C-alpha cells in the first residue's frame, strides 16, 4: 500500500505541475518577451552615461491588470537601480520588494539568489528636466515554473532530510542512553509486576503458568517505557510461544490478535525517542496529550479485538474452534 501512496504522491505532483505549466503557457500568464510600460523617476537628472543610477519605478495599476490579465495591483512605487550593461540598460528592483502576482513569481524564478527582479529597458524618453521618464521593460522569459519548483523541492528536501537526521544524533544518543539505564535497572520487570494482573483477563485462552503470558507482559511493559528495541524481541518470543498453543500453522489465534492490537495502539508513558529528538522541549506539553490519546486507542484496540473475535466470520476462522467436534457450541474459553 505504501508503494502506491508513494508513487501516487510523486506522479500526482508531476501531473499537477504539468497541468499548471501548460495552463500558464496557453494563457501566456507571464507575457514572455512582451515589454511592460513603466514610468521612472530620478532624484538627480537622468544621466545616459552613468553606470549605475538609482530610480523609482511606477507601474500604472490599470495597465498592469490589463497587461497580465490579473486583479493584482502593484505598489505605488518601487525603488530600483539602472545599470548599464553590454545588452543595454538594465532595471533592477531592490531585493525583496513586495511584488504582485505574477511579477513575484517572475522574480522568484528568474533571480532566486539575489531576490531582485530585473529586466532590460527599451529606449528612455526623459522629460526636459531629466527627472521623469517613460519606457518599457522586458523581463526574462519564465517557463515551466512548477516543473522547476517540484525538481527544486525534491533536491532541497533530500538535503534537508539528511541534515535533520544527522542533527538528531545528539538528542537521540541522550535518550537512548537514558533508556538503556532504565532497561538495565529492570524497569520492564517492575512495570510487568504492575500490569500482569490487569493483562490476565485479556488473555483467557493462555493456560496459567504458560511462558507465552510472561513474554506478553514483558513486551507490553517495554512498550510503556518507549523501549521499542527491547519490546520487539519480547513480542516475537511471545508470538512463538503463542504459536505452540495454536492448533493450526498459518491462522492467527485470538490471543495473537489481542497482542497485536495492543501493540499497534502502543501505550507509552515515554514518547518515541525520535519524537523527543524532533520536538525538543515542546514534548513536555505534548506528553499528556500523547498519553491520553494512546490510552483511548488502547481501549479501542482491546474492545475491537474482543468484539471482532465474536463476529461470525472471525468465530468461524478461530483455530481453537476449527478442530472442535461441535463448532456451534460455545465451549471455547474466549466466551468467558
Amino acid at each position: 500500500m505504501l508503494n502506491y501512496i508513494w508513487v501516487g504522491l510523486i506522479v500526482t505532483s508531476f501531473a499537477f505541475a504539468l497541468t499548471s505549466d501548460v495552463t500558464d503557457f496557453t494563457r501566456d500568464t507571464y507575457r514572455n518577451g512582451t515589454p511592460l510600460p513603466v514610468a521612472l523617476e530620478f532624484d538627480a537628472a537622468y544621466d545616459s552615461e552613468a553606470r549605475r543610477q538609482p530610480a523609482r519605478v511606477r507601474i500604472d495599476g490599470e495597465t498592469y491588470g490589463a497587461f497580465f490579465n490579473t486583479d493584482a495591483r502593484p505598489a505605488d512605487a518601487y525603488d530600483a537601480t539602472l545599470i548599464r550593461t553590454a545588452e543595454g540598460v538594465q532595471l533592477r528592483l531592490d531585493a525583496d520588494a513586495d511584488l504582485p502576482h505574477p511579477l513575484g513569481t517572475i522574480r522568484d524564478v528568474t533571480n532566486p539568489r539575489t531576490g531582485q527582479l530585473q529586466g532590460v529597458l527599451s529606449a528612455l524618453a526623459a522629460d526636459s528636466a531629466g527627472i521623469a521618464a517613460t519606457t518599457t521593460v522586458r523581463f526574462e522569459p519564465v517557463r515551466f515554473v512548477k516543473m522547476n519548483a517540484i525538481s527544486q523541492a525534491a533536491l532541497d528536501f533530500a538535503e534537508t532530510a539528511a541534515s535533520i537526521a544527522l542533527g538528531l544524533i545528539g538528542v537521540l544518543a541522550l535518550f537512548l542512553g537514558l533508556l538503556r539505564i532504565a532497561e538495565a535497572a529492570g524497569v520492564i520487570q517492575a512495570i510487568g509486576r504492575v500490569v500482569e494482573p490487569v493483562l490476565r483477563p485479556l488473555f483467557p485462552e493462555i493456560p496459567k503458568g504458560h511462558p507465552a503470558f510472561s513474554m506478553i507482559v514483558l513486551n507490553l511493559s517495554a512498550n510503556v517505557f518507549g523501549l521499542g528495541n527491547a519490546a520487539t524481541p519480547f513480542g516475537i518470543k511471545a508470538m512463538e510461544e503463542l504459536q505452540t498453543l495454536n492448533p493450526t500453522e498459518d491462522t492467527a489465534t485470538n490471543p495473537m490478535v489481542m497482542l497485536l492490537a495492543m501493540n499497534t495502539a502502543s501505550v507509552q508513558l515515554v514518547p518515541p525517542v525520535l519524537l523527543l529528538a524532533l520536538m525538543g522541549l515542546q514534548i513536555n506539553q505534548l506528553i499528556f496529550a500523547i498519553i491520553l490519546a494512546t490510552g483511548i486507542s488502547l481501549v479501542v484496540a482491546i474492545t475491537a479485538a474482543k468484539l471482532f473475535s465474536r463476529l461470525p466470520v472471525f468465530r468461524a476462522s478461530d483455530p481453537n474452534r476449527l478442530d472442535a467436534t461441535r463448532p456451534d457450541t460455545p465451549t471455547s474459553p474466549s466466551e468467558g
Partner: protein
Amino acid sequence: METFREIISFASAFVLPAILVGFPLYGLYKRVPVYETFVDGAKEGFNVAVRIIPYLVAILFAIAMFRASGAMDFLIAGLRPLLGAISIPAEVLPMAILRPLTGSGSAAIVVDMINVYGEDSILVKMAATMFGSTETTFYVIAVYFGAVGVKKTRHAVAAGLLADLVGLISAVYIVRWLFG
C-alpha cells in the same frame, strides 16, 4: 477545565527532568553501572540517526514535491469541507494516512510540517501527538506474524486500524482541547 490546563502546564515542566534525573537515580539504586550503561546505549544514537535517513529522504522529497506542485493545497482545500464537518484540520491528513504504514516516514511528516507551519503551530502539535500516540500498525503486523509464519491474520488488521483511527482523531481533539 482551566485548572486542568494549569495543572498540566505546571506538571509538564517536570516531565523531562523526571526522565533525565529519575532514570540515572533509579539505575544507581538498582546498582547498575549507570555511566557505562548510558554511554553504551548512547552509541546507538548515531546508528538510529543514520538508519532513518533513507526513510526521511523518501517521504520528505515526495511530500515536498506534492506541496510544490500545488497538489497539497488542492487536496487540503478539497477535503476541508468534509473533514471540517468533524472539525479535523485537513493539514494533518498526510500524517493520518502515513502513520500506520511507516514510522520514520511519518516522522518526516512532522519535519515537513515544522518547516511549513512553524514549531509552535497547533497543527504541528496535532501531528506530533498523532505520531506519538499510535504505532506503525502494518509494520508490527508484518514483523510479529511474519516471525511465526501466520498468514491468515483474521481481525488483527481491522482491530489495529480501528484503534489507529480512533487514536488519531482523539489526538486532534485532545490537542485542540488543551491548546486550542
